[in-house]
C-alpha cells in the first residue's frame, strides 16, 4: 500500500488506500463502492488548502499526500453541491475527561514510583518504565507491538 487518505463528511471518515499516480476520478470511483453516489455527484476538497480537487489530475499533481484529510460533499437531486461539513465530537466531552484520568479509564489503581508507574486496569497490572517528565506533563511511552 503506497498511501491512504482520510475522506470526511459529517460524522464519517473513510480511509481510502490509493497511489500517488491515481487520479481523483479513481478515488471517486472507489468511494462510489462505499456510498451509493455516482462520481458526478461527488466533490472532493483538500482541507489543508481548501482546493477543490480536479477529476482528471492525479493525487501527486494536486499535492494530496499520505494521511491527508479530504472533505467530501455531495449533490442531491441535481441541485448545488452541499457545503463542506466535517463534525467534531463535542470538545467539552473530551476535556472533561482529562482531569480524572484514573476513574475515567476504569483504572483501579495508579502507583507512582521513582522509576516506573504501575496501573491496575480491570484487575490487570501494567507497568511502564519508560517515562519522560517535563514541567507540567508526564509522558508514558507506549508499548506498541
Amino acid at each position, binding site marked *: *500500500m503506497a498511501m491512504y487518505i482520510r475522506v470526511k463528511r459529517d460524522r*464519517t471518515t473513510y480511509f481510502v*488506500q490509493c497511489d500517488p499516480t491515481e487520479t481523483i476520478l479513481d478515488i471517486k470511483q472507489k468511494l462510489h*463502492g462505499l456510498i451509493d453516489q455516482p462520481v458526478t455527484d461527488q466533490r472532493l476538497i483538500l482541507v489543508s488548502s481548501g482546493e477543490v480537487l480536479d477529476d482528471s489530475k492525479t493525487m501527486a499533481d494536486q499535492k494530496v499526500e*499520505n494521511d491527508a484529510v479530504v472533505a467530501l460533499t455531495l449533490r442531491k437531486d441535481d441541485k448545488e453541491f452541499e457545503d463542506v461539513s466535517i*463534525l467534531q465530537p463535542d470538545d467539552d466531552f473530551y476535556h472533561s475527561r482529562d482531569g480524572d484520568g484514573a476513574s475515567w479509564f476504569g483504572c483501579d489503581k495508579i502507583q507512582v514510583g521513582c522509576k516506573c508507574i504501575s496501573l491496575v*486496569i480491570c484487575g490487570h497490572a501494567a507497568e511502564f518504565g519508560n517515562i519522560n517528565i517535563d514541567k507540567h506533563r508526564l509522558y508514558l511511552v*507506549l508499548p*506498541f*507491538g
Partner: protein
Amino acid sequence: MKKEDTVKLISAEGFEFVIDKNAAMVSQTIRNMLTSPGSFSETQHGVVRFPEISTPILEKICQYFYWSLQFASGKETEFYIEPELTLELMMAANYLHT
C-alpha cells in the same frame, strides 16, 4: 472499493470510521470479532461499536493500522502521537491487542 471489504468502527460519540478489513485485522481483538464462527452481528454487518473509545483515539488507532501496514511493506516513517493522547491510546491499544 467494495463494502464487503471494509468494516465500520463506531466511537463513543457515534462517529464512524470506515476502514479496510485488512487494516482492521492489525488488531487481534477486531480480527477475532470479524472471523469468529457463528453469526455474530459484527461478522455479518461489518460494524463494530466501541462505546469506550473516544473519537480522536479511534481515529488515531485507524491511522496506526494503516501506518502498520505501510511499515510492514517497508516504508519506515515515524508514527506521531500527540502527548495528550498517549495514556488513553495506551489503554485502547491494550484492549485491542494492537
